[in-house]
């Protein structure tokens, strides 16, 4: 018996998508093989990591990650510049958490100004996210999309409860769009279908099947993503071919492994590295399952995941 490389023949591919403006625009997706398996297909673009920044100083992030931005997190413009200039961010993800009714309830007017300020301060591509409040996001994302008109941003997230408004805004201002559903491949598929039925090109769409942190449901996200990728590549299911987003930082930095002090749980070791490893390992699992675009917080985690991506291509 002699060895023959067991290659699969795939019929589908992940759609490729470009966001931001030249010369700093970024391309993701486009592969016609399973994650990192280039022995049986091509992977034209590497996964990209966007640094998360927020419109208000985060008070719910653990100290270890807050400290990384202590000198700039009071101002989204400074924060964005720091990510671009010092941390060499490939992309930035602005989360408008201050618009949440419980977190300051900022108006759509405020949003427009912040978005414009950030856009004029940096030239790397921008992702603009709401606060994950379904009703409020509808108005916030409309204002954000308009303010960012012409910048070819990614906006999100469109969910079942607000997609009509959000899709219309992304359409009108020519942005890319994240469609998010909650950990169910059928819901993800259905939302993609509903959105494309509104005349939104699937080539402009990204799928967020909902992230979860290591130890807190990671396996569900992992398997939903793997199944979405298999449907796209093996079954050539065109509704499952948009690139996948992993909104990692937001889920990771609220689990207790990332903030419990060493004196409380001595068997868990150093809090500093523990948090970084938690975010990095969550991100790695997402990448192996098929994520094309990661949103992350801690610079050391981003740097390590980038280094790992370099070893994977």
């Amino acid at each position: 018996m002699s060895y023959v490389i067991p290659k699969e023949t795939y019929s589908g591919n992940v759609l490729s998508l470009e966001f931001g403006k030249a010369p700093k625009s970024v391309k993701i997706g486009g592969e016609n093989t399973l994650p990192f398996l280039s022995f049986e297909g091509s992977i034209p673009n590497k996964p990209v990591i966007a640094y998360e920044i927020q419109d208000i100083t985060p008070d719910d992030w653990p100290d270890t990650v807050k400290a990384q931005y202590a000198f700039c997190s009071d101002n989204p413009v400074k924060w964005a510049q720091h990510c671009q200039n010092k941390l060499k961010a490939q992309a930035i993800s602005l989360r408008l958490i201050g618009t949440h009714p419980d977190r300051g309830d900022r108006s759509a007017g405020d949003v427009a100004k912040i978005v414009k300020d950030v856009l004029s301060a940096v030239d790397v591509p921008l992702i603009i996210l709401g606060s994950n409040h379904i009703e409020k996001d509808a108005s916030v994302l409309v204002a954000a999309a308009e303010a960012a008109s012409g910048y070819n941003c990614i906006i999100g997230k469109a969910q079942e409860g607000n997609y009509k408004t959000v899709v219309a805004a992304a359409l009108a201002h020519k942005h890319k769009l994240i469609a998010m559903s909650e950990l169910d491949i059928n819901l993800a598929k259905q939302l993609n279908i509903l959105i494309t039925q509104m005349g939104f090109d699937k080539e402009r769409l990204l799928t967020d099947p909902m992230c979860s942190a290591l130890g807190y449901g990671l396996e569900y996200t992992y398997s939903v993503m793997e199944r979405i990728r298999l449907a796209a590549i093996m079954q050539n299911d065109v509704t499952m071919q948009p690139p996948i987003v992993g909104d990692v930082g937001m889920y990771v930095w609220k689990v207790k492994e990332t903030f419990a002090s060493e004196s409380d749980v001595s068997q868990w070791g150093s809090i500093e590295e523990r948090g970084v490893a938690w975010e990095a390992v969550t991100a790695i699992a997402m990448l192996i399952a098929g994520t094309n675009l990661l949103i992350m917080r801690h610079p050391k985690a981003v740097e390590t995941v980038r280094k790992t991506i370099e070893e994977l291509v």
Partner: protein
Amino acid sequence: MALSGVEIFKLLPKTNCKKCGFPTCLAFAMALAQGKTELAKCPDVSEESKRVLGEASAPPIRTFFLGTSEKAVKLGGETVLFRHDKKFFNPCVYAVNVKDTLSNDELNEKIEEVLTSEIDRVGQKLRVDAISIEFASGNSSQYESAVKLISQKAPDTAIILNCKDPSAAEVAVRTIADKKPLLYCANEGNTGAMTNIAKTHKIPLGVYAKGLSELSVLTEKIKGMGVEDLVIDSGAEKAKDMLELNTQIRRSALKKNFKPLGYPIINFVLREDPIFETCVAGIAAAKYASIIVLSSIEKWKNLALFTLRQNIYTDPQVPMQVEQKIYKIGEPTVNSPLLITTNFSLTYFMVSGEVENSKVPAYLAVMDCEGLSVLTAWAAGKFTAGKIVQFIKDSGVENQISHRELIIPGQVAILSGAIEDKLEGWKITVGPREANGIPTFLKSRPA
């Protein structure tokens, strides 16, 4: 790949003697193909047929134990490429690599690290399962004494003899052969000698070759010499090669029933930066390694890697539920708030996490709704006023708290009137719609 009834029939004596309890050889063959009887029931089957049938019915990836203590770990035996297809069965082993050039004090420190690595996570005891002892000194008596020391101080921990020099290996194996260490490894240059040691002492053998073609040739050769408990190393150094070759090995074994690669995989992921090493180990854990050898085992790193392994190896068919009960978050008192939610495990994780973030100690009543989230459970008639009232009464929470206020999820605000009607003396408060609103909600309540 299992043989069909007809294929099995061709290997039987075809005398229809009925000694197996079946009317004909064909009937017996059919039953055998379906796993309803065993080959031993036919007394007349030839040795050659036994061998062929035995091989065909062997699992596609060989399964055996590493170590001999009650902490011995099962390797191999996987049946699928993707966890959602069924499940991954035998969690990978994490081993730490230790050089024999370390001083006794340093060795003792490492051993201590391994012995205290055990962590309890959601009811499972997780630990560093093995120590890989590297022959770095070039001195076989130094190697032997390091091996001795480790096996005495960590008697239950499995040992990997990371030594390519047959004479040093022979000495070390002799001292601990009863512990069934894994001998790592046979390669192109030492195949005969290493295989002989493994065969003589009946221990598993690691096999190393650069590339899978070369590796297949080597495993066949070693099997021919009589050692079959093998662990294979493709020689991958970059993460990319590791992922691709591990995938090709698993696929060859499962989809092509290619026996020369039907063995558990070992990956050395040694990197200088411990966080980077954690990431590369994570790839190996997700994609098909059975033994992952690390250069360091910091507590934070173990926690992350144990948790990942637990996530990857959980059974995807088991519904995502947590136990119905009143959970304490922080150290609640009789005056602490009481919230209710459903037992969908992600709902539970999110709600309990946000309550924890609020730093307000609280009780969380988690009600069995067959693993459905709040809105779905409500729509399915499982999270209704009547059922909530019954659960609160039966839970005994009335003895734990002195107040009578229940906070319900904002998504089922509609239930508040009905619950208040049925739960006498209670006040129902509508909480936030989304879990991320909980910290603000709890913090803004008068203490």
